[in-house]
C-alpha cells in the first residue's frame, strides 16, 4: 500500500496549524531510524508559502502548503552520492537516513521544490518524513491531523487517484516530470477578478452571471459573483485577449471587450451596472 495526498488550497484558512503541528511533532523528538530532531528555526518541513499575485490594493494570496512531494522519480535519490542514504520505503515514502548522511547538500541542491534542508549543527540534510512513525501506528501525519479546514486528503494511492480525477487536482510544476505523489487543487493560475456594483446605489450585486470568452480561441468560462459582488475566474491563459459579459436580473447587460490579460492576477476594480428603465 502506497500513500498519496491531495492539498486543496482553496479550503486553506492560513492558520498555520500544519506548520505548528510539524514543529510540535519533530522539534526535540528523534524518531530513529527515520529522523533526527528538527531544528526550531530555518527548517519548515511543511511550509505554508503565501504566494502573492496582483498589486496593491487588489492582491490575491494563495497559501500553498509545501511539503515533500514523495516524487515517483526523485532527483534527490539520484543526486545522493552515498548508497542507500536516501531510500524509498515500501509505502512510497522517501527518507534520508540520518546516520548515513554526511551533509554533502547534493540533495538540497537537486530538489526543485526546495524542501530539503541542511542542518548546521548536526551536519545532515533533513526533510519531511510524511510522519512515517505515525503511519506505522496507523495514524495520519501530524499536519493532516491538525488541519481544521480539511485541506489535506490523505490515503491510499488508488483512492487518491480517483479523487484526483474527480476533483481535477494537478501536480505542482508538472513540467519537471518528477511524478510527485502530492496533488494540489487551486494552484495559482492566470486569473481575472472584478467587483460588480449597482451604478445608482453602489451596492454589491450578488449572483451576477459573468461570461469570459477568449476572442481568438472562443473558449468560454462562466462564473457567478458571490454575495459581496466579487467574481474570480481562474485557469485563463496569459497574454490572451478576453471579452467579459456581465448580466444580472433588472440590470442592463454590460460587456467589456478586448481586455489583454497581461499579468497573472488582474482585478478590474468596480464594474458598475446600470438599472433597466
Amino acid at each position, binding site marked *: 500500500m502506497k500513500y498519496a495526498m491531495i492539498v486543496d488550497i482553496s479550503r486553506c484558512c492560513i492558520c498555520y496549524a500544519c506548520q*505548528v503541528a510539524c514543529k510540535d511533532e519533530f522539534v526535540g523528538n528523534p524518531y530513529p531510524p527515520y529522523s533526527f530532531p528538527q531544528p526550531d528555526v530555518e527548517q519548515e518541513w511543511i511550509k505554508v508559502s503565501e504566494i502573492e499575485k496582483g498589486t*496593491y490594493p487588489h492582491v490575491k494570496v494563495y497559501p500553498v502548503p509545501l511539503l515533500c512531494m514523495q516524487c515517483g522519480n526523485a532527483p534527490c535519490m539520484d543526486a545522493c552520492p552515498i548508497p542507500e542514504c536516501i531510500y524509498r520505503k515500501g509505502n512510497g515514502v522517501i527518507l534520508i537516513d540520518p546516520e548515513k548522511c554526511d551533509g554533502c547538500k547534493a540533495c538540497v541542491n537537486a530538489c526543485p521544490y526546495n524542501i530539503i534542508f541542511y542542518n548546521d549543527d548536526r551536519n545532515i540534510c533533513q526533510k519531511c518524513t510524511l510522519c512515517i512513525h505515525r503511519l506505522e501506528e496507523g495514524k495520519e501525519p501530524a499536519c493532516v491531523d491538525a488541519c481544521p479546514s480539511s485541506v489535506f486528503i490523505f490515503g491510499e494511492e488508488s483512492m487518491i487517484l480517483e479523487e484526483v480525477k474527480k476533483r481535477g487536482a494537478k501536480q505542482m510544476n508538472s513540467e519537471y516530470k518528477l511524478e510527485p505523489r502530492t496533488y494540489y487543487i487551486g494552484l495559482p493560475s492566470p486569473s481575472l477578478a472584478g467587483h460588480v456594483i449597482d451604478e445608482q446605489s453602489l451596492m454589491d450585486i450578488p449572483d451576477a452571471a459573468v461570461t469570459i470568452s477568449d476572442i481568438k480561441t472562443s473558449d468560454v468560462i462562466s462564473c457567478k459573483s458571490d454575495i459581496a459582488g466579487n467574481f474570480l475566474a481562474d485557469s485563463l491563459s496569459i497574454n490572451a485577449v478576453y471579452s467579459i459579459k456581465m448580466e444580472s436580473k433588472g440590470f442592463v447587460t454590460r460587456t467589456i471587450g478586448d481586455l489583454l490579460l497581461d499579468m497573472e492576477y488582474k482585478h478590474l476594480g468596480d464594474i458598475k451596472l446600470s438599472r433597466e428603465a
Partner: protein
Amino acid sequence: MVSFLIRSSGSIRCRLRKLHKIKDSNGYEYEPIWINTKDAEARGIKHRDIVMAFSEKGKILAGAYVTERIKPGVVRMFYGGNWDPEDPRSRESLDRGGSGNVLTTNSPQSSHAYLHRIQHMMIDVCKWEGQN
C-alpha cells in the same frame, strides 16, 4: 519620505515568532517589518534585507518583508521583538532586537489605561549597511 508604523496586536504570526524571523549572514534573527514593493524599491531594499527603522525617539533594526499586501507609505511590525540594544544605558542606542517600544512614545494611552501606544507612529525606513 515618511512612513507610518502600525503596531498590530493579536496576529497569528506572533505565535510563529521564531519561524518568521529573518536571519542575517551571521545568524542573528531580526524581527520582520512589512513594507510595500514601491516603498522598498524607492529605498533600494530587497526582500530579507536588514533595514533600520527610525523615529524621532529611537532606532531599531529589522528584516524587510517586501509585500504587496501593505499600503504604500505604511510599514507594519507585529508587536516587535525583545529589546536588545548595543548600549543598555543609552536611550539613543540602536536596538538590534526590533522592539517597537523604542520607536513609540513613552506616554500612556490614557490616564486610565497605562498601556503603550500601539497604534501608529511617524517613522522612516532605510537600508542598513552597518556592521551586523
